């Protein structure tokens, strides 16, 4: 069971694994091996694990079958890792380098030139910190009773995704925790690979709603997946997505807070830009929204109902959909049967049109 400090600590570790921020670990208690094994079990299994230094026997048999690199010549070792990191940029499998038993000398000669993707264990994190260049950003975290970590880089502004994820799984036993973390990493890795393939093969656009509908990725996971792909392959796939403006997102979020709202979608030129699914995940939200938005445009064109128009649809089960246009964007709100449609419509109109 993780407490608040552990969640903060592990959130930083997960973030560093996602962004491939290098970090040192100091585990000094009697259960050092168990704690280290546990932490290293979080290393994404799709990465090629390279280990060096005073590699403990158990580490040779870790999941992912690590390759043990000779450590006698620090320069040679640094060059080998650096070359693997370069190969990632041309399609090779991303690596994760773990150095066991690093001191300041190893940091200077092997680790410091490597920009990303390494973890080093040490017995004396204070000496390491003292030896870091004064202009190098770093931050210290502590958790899991007696584990310290120094992350080389700026402290992340937002660890919301990692913290929310850990809070959801904090009650699970150690093995389940590793499994659930690996499952999340695999989901992001596989989705990232499929999306990159999709973008290479088709010239079409993709939206966050497509990611949710077709890849079953919720928005926080998708956003973190962009980070993972950027860190592992140097590709920013977020640039290829059609993302809604902050104004649209703001309106959608406000509508989502209305009583009786089941789901909200914003559609522009037949593309679902943004969705908030509050209940009923099985709803084909994106497809229904596209049809309803098209219907709304068609009726206006054909019948000239005038300006400032809106649409309501009532279904046999009593649920409703309210459709309101604001600028170029059509907002669709799915309501429960308990909703007073006229009242909800008025609220949505106020939020959309100000």
């Amino acid at each position, binding site marked *: 069971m993780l407490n608040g400090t552990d969640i903060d600590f592990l959130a930083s570790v997960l973030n560093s694994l996602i962004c491939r921020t290098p970090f040192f670990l100091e585990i000094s208690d009697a259960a050092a091996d168990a704690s280290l094994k546990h932490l290293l079990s979080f290393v994404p299994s799709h990465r090629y694990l390279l280990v060096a230094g005073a590699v403990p026997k158990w580490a040779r048999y870790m999941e992912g079958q690590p390759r043990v690199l000779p450590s006698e010549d620090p320069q040679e070792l640094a060059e080998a890792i650096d070359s693997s990191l370069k190969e990632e940029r041309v399609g090779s499998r991303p690596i994760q380098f773990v150095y066991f038993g690093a001191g300041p000398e190893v940091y200077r000669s092997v680790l410091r030139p490597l920009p990303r993707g390494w973890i080093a264990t040490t017995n004396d994190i204070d000496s390491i910190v003292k030896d870091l260049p004064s202009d190098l950003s770093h931050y210290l975290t502590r958790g899991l009773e007696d584990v310290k970590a120094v992350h080389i880089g700026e402290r992340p502004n937002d660890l919301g995704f990692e913290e929310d994820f850990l809070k959801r799984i904090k009650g699970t036993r150690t093995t389940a925790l590793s499994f659930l973390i690996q499952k999340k990493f695999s989901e992001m890795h596989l989705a990232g690979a499929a999306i990159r393939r999709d973008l290479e093969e088709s010239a079409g656009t993709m939206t966050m709603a497509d990611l949710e509908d077709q890849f079953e990725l919720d928005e926080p996971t998708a956003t973190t997946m962009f980070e993972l792909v950027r860190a592992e392959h140097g590709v920013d796939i977020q640039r290829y997505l059609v993302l809604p403006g902050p104004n649209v997102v703001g309106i959608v979020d406000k509508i989502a807070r209305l009583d009786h709202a089941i789901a909200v979608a914003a559609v522009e030129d037949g593309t679902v830009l943004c969705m908030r699914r509050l209940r009923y995940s099985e709803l084909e939200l994106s497809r229904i929204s596209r*049809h309803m938005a098209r219907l709304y445009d068609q009726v206006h064109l054909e*019948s000239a109902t*005038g300006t400032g*128009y809106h649409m309501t649809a*009532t*279904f046999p089960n009593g649920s409703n959909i309210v459709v309101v246009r604001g600028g170029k964007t059509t907002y669709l709100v799915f309501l429960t049967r308990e909703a007073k449609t006229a009242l909800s419509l008025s609220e949505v109109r106020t939020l959309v049109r100000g």
Partner: protein
Amino acid sequence: MAPNQKDFDTIISKLDEVQEVRGCIIVSQDGEVVASKLDRGLDEEKLVAMSKDMVGTFGKLKTECNFESPEMVVIEGDSGKVAALSVASDTGYIFLLGKPDMSLGMIKMTIKVAIEKAQ
């Protein structure tokens, strides 16, 4: 019992008596126009196309989205109102074009009475 052509004609003439209604079209689930009556000045061809298109979209909600077809759809604007009402269990839709003050409660009642009388 599903309404027949005579029932549809009765419904159309009853709706035509409502002052705020400017026109109505009944479209079957297959997209066929089974009855219509429109005020002069309304573009029948365009409105029929719109009605058929709407019925097509309602069908897609069911077939493509695993959702229900709507019972009623209302589009309200500054200068008018368009309503599509489902007729007797998936038989089709009645499309009404009306003035902004067209009361759908009254319309629904008129349709219900007309169907009951016809049966």
